[in-house]
């Protein structure tokens, strides 16, 4: 099929572009390093005690990798969730995981927990939020997408209120600034340890979603339709939602809550390759990773200090989304 070949070419091009972007990102930073030096240090990891090598291997490389993984996680989960909930306006926040994770992190800062405990708290509360969503759905004895969305909204609201409570309880001089900064999201303290922590869930949940990518097409049908086609919706949807929760919780645990990426990237991907999730999911994965790396480049080079990345994704994401909405109408009308 000609379109298959075209997609393969596009996919390969996207991967190549992302890798190129990663390389360029490694060359950017406040510590001035010509790109030639960067490449040299990449090829010679055993270079002795040079700051340049250290900047490349312990500062930039883990950060670029982490930005990529987090962006890819958000793009993938956003595309999946839009399919599951049959609604292109869905964002990974819809299942309440982001708010739950934000609460876990804020609580940890308030209590002064160690970084490892903080990440565990964030991750656990994120997954717990999904559990609560299902609990509410079960109590209603219905598990339709509408019920799940409403439960997600309820829980997001609840956890957001708890986060506000934590902020209120926090010392305004010593603790509140920490909380505010963390909530806005940042890759500033990226290290290899954190990369491992996020790589695990991303690779695991990502593989599951990737293998299910055709089934997710079926999930986006009417419930009646899908049932009639022989698809057991509830277990499939549960598995998919748990995978998405893993992705989102891991991302928030290592970098705080980052908005807009999970909403905008799937739309961009859909414009490029269409609605078939066999193509959409990998495209959203690579686009999300590339986008996040680019935005993080801005976050760490626009000023001397660090700009929280959530600010930039919102400032960039909102106009891009508007643009997509306007032009997708025009393009699909043709």
């Amino acid at each position: 099929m000609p379109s298959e070949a075209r997609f393969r070419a596009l996919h390969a091009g996207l991967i190549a572009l992302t890798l190129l972007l990663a390389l360029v990102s490694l060359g950017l930073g406040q510590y001035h390093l010509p790109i030639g030096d960067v490449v040299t240090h990449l090829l010679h990891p055993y270079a002795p005690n040079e700051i340049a090598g250290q900047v490349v291997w312990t500062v930039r490389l883990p950060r670029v990798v982490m930005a990529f993984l987090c962006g890819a996680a958000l793009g993938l989960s956003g595309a999946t969730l839009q399919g599951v909930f049959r609604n292109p306006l869905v964002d990974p926040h819809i299942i309440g995981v982001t708010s739950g994770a934000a609460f876990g992190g804020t609580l940890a800062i308030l209590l002064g927990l160690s970084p490892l405990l903080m990440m565990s708290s964030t991750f656990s509360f994120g997954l717990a939020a999904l559990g609560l969503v299902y609990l509410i759905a079960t109590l209603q004895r219905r598990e339709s997408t509408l019920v799940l969305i409403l439960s997600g909204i309820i829980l997001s609201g609840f956890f957001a209120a708890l986060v506000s409570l934590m902020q209120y309880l926090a010392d305004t001089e010593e603790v509140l600034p920490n909380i505010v900064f963390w909530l806005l999201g940042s890759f500033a303290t990226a290290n290899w340890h954190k990369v491992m922590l996020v790589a695990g869930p991303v690779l695991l949940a990502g593989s599951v979603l990737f293998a299910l990518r055709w089934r997710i097409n079926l999930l986006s049908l009417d419930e009646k339709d899908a049932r009639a086609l022989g698809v057991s919706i509830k277990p499939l949807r549960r598995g998919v939602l748990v995978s998405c929760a893993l992705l989102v919780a891991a991302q928030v645990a290592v970098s705080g809550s980052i908005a807009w990426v999970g909403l905008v990237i799937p739309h961009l991907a859909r414009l490029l390759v269409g609605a078939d999730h066999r193509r959409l999911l990998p495209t959203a994965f690579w686009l999300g990773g590339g986008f996040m790396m680019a935005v993080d480049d801005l976050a760490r080079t626009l000023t001397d200090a660090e700009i929280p990345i959530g600010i930039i994704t919102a400032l960039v994401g909102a106009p891009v989304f508007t643009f997509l909405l306007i032009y997708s109408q025009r393009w699909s009308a043709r």
Partner: protein
Amino acid sequence: MSRRHRLYLCTALACSAFFASAAAHADRTVTDQLGRQVTLPDHVHRVVVLQHQTLNLLVQLNAQDDIVGVMSSWKKQLGPQFARFMPKITTLPMPGDLTQANIESLLALHPQVVFVANYAPTEMIQQIQNAGIPVVAISLREDAAGEKNKMNPTMANEEQAYNDGLKQGIRLIGDVVERPKEAEALIDYTFRARANANAAVADIPEDKKVRVYMANPDLNTYGSGKYTGLMMKHAGALNVAAATVKGARQVSLEQVLQWNPQVIFVQDRYPEVVKAIESDPQWQAIDAVKHHRVWLMPEYAKAWGYPMPEAMAIGELWMAKKLYPERYKDINVDAQAQDYYQHFYRVSWKSHAL
């Protein structure tokens, strides 16, 4: 997988190699106010300061020439007038702030030590330390073990915690930048001046103390566990918020109305608060506002959560005289301020308010 192991290994090697080389030059160890053992080079001339209290102290220790990077919010925290003590501050790079740092900007400055607040995120401290730059955390407060980086630590004796903490902090900073004599001089002057100033109001009984409220913007104030309350105590006053509020917090107008303070003080860095309170109809019922006792404090009266030597040495005196003028009839506070400023800021004291 083996590729990842190799990656880990060479990262570890690079780090350890760097540390090995760093250790060769480093010669001394200090204990910072988070209880951390920090290894420093013998001679330190390149310092990055990511905490405004430490910045203030470094200037008073005459070490400002060693500063190569400051926190980005210094203007907000210390007031733009601070630049007159250290003109070059306006041109310095700002690689971070109290709660975040751009590690590459830091590395580009090649600092030999970074001063951070005790409440800087642990991750930030770890990241800077892992990059081979020593980090010294300052709290100006002697906390019990385990409470050192918590908000609102429980303090058995606030007075002692802050007195000892300030001395420890000044000595630590002086040690790091090799200004031990200046550090001792600062401590000596401060505590003697304070003892002199406080004498006149030391005997006022609790129920006769003037009731004072510290007004920060947006109904924020300082409760117990902060130096603010101690400053008021030394000035013979009572912090109305200390009994029920812990730490720096936003309170409600009703609470302020209930406390009905006799005097409201506003810090020099928030002049707009005075106007806001005086013109706000909701505040008019308060004793302090009725009797026009809403006062902007001078620059040196830093009634902050953390103690500053100028606040102890002359700030408390200013406050005491303001509240009990008859007990300080012969004392010229401006002259005292002038003396302090010439000694430690090396400029003249100019009051721009009151």
